[in-house]
C-alpha cells in the first residue's frame, strides 16, 4: 500500500511542478501549437482527475482559471458580442460587462469539461502565413458515436502573445451567438440591464451543482 501511495504523491507533485513551469510558456509560440498544448493539457487533466469527472465545481473552475483563461481575451470577446454598444459604454461598464461575461463563459466551459470521457481531439492543418495576426485554428472532437464535433478557435496576436477571442462549436461562433441576445437585452434595458442579467445568471450558476444528469 504504502509505496503505491508514495508513488501517487510523487507523480502528482511532479505533474504539478511541470505544469507550473510549463504555464508561462514562451509568448512567441505559434497559435496552433498554443491551442494544441492547452487542449492536450486540459484533456489530460480532466481524464486523470476523478473529482473533475464527478463534477467538483471548484476543481474544474481552478482548471479553467489557471490553464485556459490566461490565453483568452475576454475584453475582445465582449466587445465583439456587444457590437456597436461597446463604444457607447463607459469604461466602468465595459469592465463589468467583460467580467460578468467571462464568468458566465467559465461556468459554461466548466460544464462542458466535466462531460469529457473518451473523446479525442484532432487538429487540422492551419492555413495562415507567419505574418498574420488573426488566425483560425481548426479541430474536431471525435466522439464515440455520430459525426465529429467541430471545435474551432480564433486567435489574435497582441502584446501578450496569442490569445483566443472566439470559439466555434458545431458550426456556431460563440460571439455571434451571443450578439443577438446582447443586442436584444441592451435595446430593452440598456447596458446596465445586460450586466445585471449576466450577474444574476452567474449567481444562479454559482449555487447550482454541476452535472445534474447522472452518468
Amino acid at each position: 500500500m504504502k509505496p503505491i501511495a508514495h508513488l501517487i504523491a510523487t507523480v502528482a507533485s511532479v505533474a504539478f511542478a511541470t505544469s507550473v513551469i510549463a504555464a508561462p510558456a514562451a509568448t512567441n509560440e505559434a497559435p496552433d501549437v498554443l491551442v494544441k498544448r492547452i487542449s492536450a493539457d486540459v484533456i489530460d487533466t480532466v481524464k486523470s482527475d476523478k473529482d473533475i469527472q464527478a463534477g467538483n465545481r471548484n476543481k474544474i473552475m481552478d482548471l479553467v482559471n489557471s490553464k485556459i483563461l490566461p490565453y483568452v481575451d475576454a475584453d475582445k470577446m465582449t466587445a465583439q458580442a456587444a457590437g456597436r454598444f461597446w463604444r457607447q459604454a463607459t469604461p466602468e461598464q465595459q469592465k463589468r460587462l467583460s467580467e460578468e461575461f467571462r464568468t458566465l463563459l467559465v461556468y459554461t466551459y466548466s460544464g462542458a469539461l466535466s462531460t469529457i470521457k473518451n473523446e479525442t481531439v484532432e487538429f487540422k492543418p492551419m492555413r495562415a502565413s507567419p505574418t498574420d495576426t488573426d488566425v483560425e485554428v481548426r479541430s474536431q472532437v471525435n466522439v464515440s458515436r455520430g459525426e465529429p464535433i467541430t471545435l474551432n478557435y480564433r486567435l489574435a496576436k497582441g502584446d501578450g502573445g496569442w490569445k483566443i477571442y472566439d470559439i466555434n462549436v458545431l458550426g456556431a461562433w460563440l460571439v455571434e451567438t451571443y450578439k443577438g441576445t446582447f443586442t436584444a437585452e441592451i435595446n430593452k434595458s440598456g447596458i446596465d440591464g445586460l450586466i445585471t442579467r449576466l450577474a444574476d445568471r452567474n449567481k444562479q450558476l454559482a449555487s447550482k451543482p454541476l452535472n445534474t444528469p447522472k452518468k
Partner: protein
Amino acid sequence: MNKNMNTLPRMGGLALAVAACAVLSGCATSANPQDPFEKFNRASFAFNDTVDRTVLKPVATGYKNVTPGFVQTGVGNFFGNLSDAWSAVNNLLQGKGEAGMTDVTRVALNSTFGILGLLDIASDAGLQKHNEDFGQTLGHWGVPSGPFVMLPLFGPSTVRDTAALPADRWGDPWKRKDPHNWRNIGSGIRVVDQRASLLDASNLLEEAALDRYEFLRDGFLQRRQSQVYDGNVPRTLGEDADDAPTTNTQVVPEPVSPQPAAPAPAAGTPGKTQQ
C-alpha cells in the same frame, strides 16, 4: 414525435399555418430580420419545451441511465446507418462525388460487416460520417435559407429546410419499414435515443443562454449555414468585421425575404430529427 403514420397531414397543416402567418405578416413584430415570425416561433418553442420537460427529457434521461452503453451505441449506429444512405444521395446531388462515395461505402460496410448497421466499423476505418440532408442540397445550389422557423415538435428550422423536409422524410428508409408496429416503435426509440445523445448539450444550453430561444435560434442558423458550406463559411459572409459599425445584420447572408421562399409544400424540420 416522429411517428411516420400521420405526420404528413399534420405537417401540411403546419405549412399552412406558417404560410398564413407569412401572408398576414401580422407576426412580423420582431426586430430581428432573420426572425419575422418570432411571436409564432416563441409560442412554438414554449410548446416544444413543455413537451420536452414533461415527456421527452425524462424518458431520454431514464434511457441514458438504464440502458447499457453498447445498446445505446448500437441504436445510434443503426439509425445513423439508415441516414447515411440519404446523406449519400444528397452528397451526390451536390456534386460531391468523393463524399457521396464515402457514404455509399459506409452503408455497404456497416450494413454487412457492421451487422445491419449496429456497428459503425466504417468510422473506425476512417470513413467520416456526413449528415447531409435535402435542405443542405438546396442551400448548396443557392436557395436562401429564409427566416427562422420553430416548428412544433420538430424543432428549429428555416423556411427552406421546412420545405425540404418532405424529401428528407421520403428518403428515410425506416419510413418503409414494414409492420407498422415495428416502424412506430423504432421511430419512438430513435427519437428517445437522439434526445439522449443531446442531454449534455441541452444542459449546457440552459446554463450558457440568457434567453434560450434566442441562443438556440442564433446558434442554429449559424450551424445550418456552416453545414451548407461544409464548415468553410467564407468569413466575410459569416460575420461583420471587428469594429465595423454593427448594423443588426444577422448571421445568415442570404437576402431576407419577407415572404417565405417560393415553394412551401409541406412542413417539418430537420432539427431534432436529423442531428
